C-alpha cells in the first residue's frame, strides 16, 4: 500500500425479510447517510462512489448503479460498480480502499446492498445455463455436498454445525441491525427444524434479507479530520487481498480452497500476522451455512487442517468465553442481504476496531480480520484492520 487508508465512517440498515418501507434507492441511501453522518461528512465531501451487489437478477434491475447515482450523491463524480459473486461486498470495499491507497482520492463512499424481496434469489441462482449441470437448489444445494466432504474428511461429529447456528444467533441478539432475533434458539430448536439440504437444517442456513451497508474510507489526512470532528477513531487498513480460482477442474479442493489460503497468506503477510488465532482479537467471516465456520477456521489458518470443528465445539469462537470470537454481529447466518453480506463482515470488524460495536463489542480489540467468499468457494476478499496506524 502506497498511502494509508482508514475506515472513517460506518453505516448499515436494519436487515429484514422485506423492507417494504423503502425503494432500492431509499435502502442504499439510508446506509450511506448513516456512514456519512458517522464520519461527520456530507455527500459533497465525497470524491468517488464504489457500489457493489450480487447478480442483478436479485432485484430485476440491470446495472442498478446507473439509477442509484443521484441517491448516492454520485452525480458529477466517478462511480464504479463491482460484482464478484458472494464476495462482492468485500471486494467492493477493497476497490474503494485502493482508490485511497493508490493516492487517487481522499474520501471514497462505498456501498453494498441487496433487496432480495424484490425478486427470488433461489430462482435467480438456478437459471439453467447451456452445457452446465442444472442446480435448481440455490446455494445450499451447491454447498451441502462439500460440507459432507468436510465432515467425512475431518471426522467431525454431526452436532458441530448446529452449535454454530446457535452461537451466531445468540450473538445476533446483541446486534440491533441483525435480521434474525431468535431468543429461544437452542440445539434442540435447530435439530427440530427441517433438513433442507442434507446435512443442513433450516436453521443452519442464512436468511434472505433486504439490507445495505456503507463505509467512508479516507486517507491519513481525511482520517485525522474526521476524528477531530467526530471524536471517533479510525480503523486502519493493515492488509487487503483478493484471490480467485476456477469453479471446477479435476482435483480442485472445494473444502479447503487454495484461493482462500493464498488470500489469507497475502493479507497476513501485509499485516504482519503470523499466528491468526493469537494475533486477531476477533473476526467476521462469511458463514452462510453453519459448517463453513469450522471449514474457514482451517482455511484461514486459525488451526491445523481437520481441527476446525474442535475449536467450534470447544466454544473458542463464542463471545461467551471464547478466545477468538467469530461473527459477534450474528454473521451471515443472522443477516444475509447477499451483495452486502461481505461488506457487513468488513464493516463489523471496523466497528470492533473502533470500539463502536455496542453490545456485541469485544473488549480491547486491536486487530481483526474480515473475510468474504463467493461463487463455488472460489472468490475471496479479505482485509485486516487495526487500531494502530500501519
Amino acid at each position, binding site marked *: 500500500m502506497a498511502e494509508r487508508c482508514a475506515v472513517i465512517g460506518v453505516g448499515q440498515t436494519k436487515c429484514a425479510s422485506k423492507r417494504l418501507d423503502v425503494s432500492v434507492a431509499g435502502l442504499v441511501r439510508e446506509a450511506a447517510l448513516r456512514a456519512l453522518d458517522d464520519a461527520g461528512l456530507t455527500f459533497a465531501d465525497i470524491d468517488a462512489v464504489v457500489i457493489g451487489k450480487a447478480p442483478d437478477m436479485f432485484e430485476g434491475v440491470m446495472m442498478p448503479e446507473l439509477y442509484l447515482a443521484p441517491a448516492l450523491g454520485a452525480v458529477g463524480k466517478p462511480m464504479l460498480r463491482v460484482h464478484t459473486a458472494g464476495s462482492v461486498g468485500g471486494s467492493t470495499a477493497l476497490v474503494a480502499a485502493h482508490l485511497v491507497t493508490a493516492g487517487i482520492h481522499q474520501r471514497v463512499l462505498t456501498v453494498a446492498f441487496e433487496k432480495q424481496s424484490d425478486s427470488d434469489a433461489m430462482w435467480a441462482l438456478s*437459471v439453467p445455463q447451456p452445457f452446465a449441470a442444472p442446480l435448481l437448489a440455490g446455494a445450499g444445494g451447491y454447498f451441502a455436498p462439500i460440507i459432507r466432504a468436510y465432515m467425512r474428511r475431518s471426522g467431525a461429529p454431526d452436532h458441530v454445525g448446529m452449535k454454530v447456528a446457535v452461537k451466531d444467533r445468540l450473538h445476533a441478539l446483541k446486534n440491533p441491525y441483525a435480521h434474525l432475533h431468535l431468543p429461544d434458539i437452542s440445539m434442540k430448536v435447530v435439530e427440530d427444524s427441517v433438513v433442507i439440504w442434507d446435512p443442513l437444517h433450516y436453521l443452519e442456513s442464512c436468511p434472505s434479507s433486504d439490507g445495505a451497508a456503507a463505509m467512508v474510507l479516507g486517507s491519513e489526512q481525511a482520517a485525522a479530520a474526521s476524528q477531530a470532528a467526530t471524536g471517533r477513531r479510525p480503523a486502519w487498513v493493515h492488509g487487503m487481498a483478493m484471490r480467485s480460482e476456477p469453479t471446477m477442474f479435476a482435483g480442485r479442493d472445494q473444502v479447503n480452497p487454495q484461493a482462500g489460503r493464498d488470500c489469507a497468506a497475502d493479507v497476513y503477510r501485509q499485516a504482519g500476522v503470523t499466528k491468526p488465532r493469537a494475533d486477531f482479537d476477533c473476526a467476521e467471516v462469511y458463514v452462510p451455512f453453519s459448517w463453513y465456520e469450522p471449514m474457514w477456521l482451517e482455511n484461514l489458518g486459525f488451526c491445523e487442517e481437520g481441527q476446525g470443528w474442535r475449536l467450534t465445539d470447544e466454544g473458542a469462537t463464542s463471545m461467551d468465553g471464547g478466545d477468538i470470537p467469530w461473527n459477534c454481529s450474528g454473521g451471515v447466518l443472522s443477516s444475509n442481504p447477499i451483495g452486502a453480506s461481505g461488506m457487513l463482515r468488513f464493516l463489523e470488524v471496523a466497528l470492533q476496531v473502533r470500539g463502536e460495536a455496542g453490545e456485541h463489542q469485544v473488549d480491547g480489540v486491536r486487530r481483526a480480520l474480515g473475510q468474504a467468499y463467493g461463487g463455488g468457494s472460489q472468490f475471496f476478499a479479505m482485509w485486516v484492520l487495526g487500531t494502530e496506524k500501519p
Partner: protein
Amino acid sequence: MPAAPAPRQGRRPVAVVSFAQAPNVRRDTAHNEVELLLPVIGEVLGNLGITKDDIGFICSGSTDYLIGGPFSFVAALDAVGVWPPKSESHVEMDAAWALYEAWVRLQEGDVDTALVYGFGKSSMGDLGKILALQLDPYVMAPLWPDPVSLAALQARALLDHGLATERDFAEVAARSRRSALDNPKAQVAYDRSADDLLGEDYVVAPLRRHALPPLTDGAAAVMLAAGDRAFELCERPAWITGIDHRVETHALGARDLTSSPSTAKAAEVAGVSAGPVEVVELHAPFAPQELVLCRALGLPVDPTGAGSTSVNPSGGPLAANALMAGGLIRIGEAAARIIDGRVSRVVAHATSGPVLQQNLVAVLEGA
C-alpha cells in the same frame, strides 16, 4: 530505456502494451462467452510472448443481463484459467471501467501487469427489451423505453436546438462505415454517400437506419503494464497520461441531452486539451452522439472528417458495437495507433447507461 511521459494522475506511469479483439459479428452461434474470449486472451498475451503466469492482476467487465443468467463473468474466467489462484476482480460495467480499476491497482507498485477483458453477446436476447431494464425500475422501466427511442429523443433535441442536421448524422455514418473498410474486425463497412443514406426510411424519427449501431457479438482484451515493465514488453507502449470517469443523473428529464457534462469533466481531469489530439476513438453508438461528445471534449465538430483529428478511424461503434467490450475496444483501438508508431497522442472515450449517462475519457501518449 526511454522515459515514460509523466502521468497527470497517479504516481506511476501505466501503459497499454497489447490489445486484441474477436471478430465482431451479428450472431456467433458457434461460441459461448468462454470460447469467444479464449483466442482473444491468447492473442493479447501472445503478442507479448508472455503467459497467464506473468499477469499480476485481472479485471473484467460484463453484464449478466445479456446471457440472462447470474454470474456470466464466473464462467468467462475459465478463458484465463486462474490456477494457481490470481488476484482478480470484475465490474458489472463496460470493460473500460475494468481497465480503470486495473490502472488504479497498478499505481501501488506491488504488481506491474494487468489483464483486462470484456465480452458481450447481444444476439442472446432482445436488446431493446433488455436495456429497458437498465432504467429506473419504478418510473421508467415499466414504460419499456427502448434504446433507439431514447437516442431519437437525444437526436431530436440536437435538431431542435440547431446543433445538428440530419445530414450531419448521415455524414458521421458514411465516414464511420467508410473507415471501417480498413478494419478487418468491423461488422458493418461500406462506401456510401450521405445523400444515399438520407434516402433511407426512419427507424425512429429522426434516426434512419444508418444512424443506428449494429447488434454485435464480441469480446476484447488489453494488457496493461507499469513503469519499466511496459518498455520490456513493448517497444512503444501507449502511456495512459490521464484517465477519469464521471456519472450524470439517471433522470432523463433532468438532463440536457444535447450536452455531456460528465464527458467534459472527465476530459478536463484527464487533460485532453493539454496537447494536440491526433486520433479520438469515441464510444458513440448512435451517430448524433459523436457530435455531442466532440463538443464535450473540446474537439471540432466535423462530421465529414476533414479536420486534423481523426475521429473513429476504426469505424467506431457504428461499425461494431459489442456491449460491455465496446468502451475497452475504443481504448485498445486508440492505443494500437500509438503502439504501431502511427501517432503520438490519442484520446479514447467509453460510455455506459442510457444516452451517455456515464462517461470515461483517457489520454494516451507515446514516449
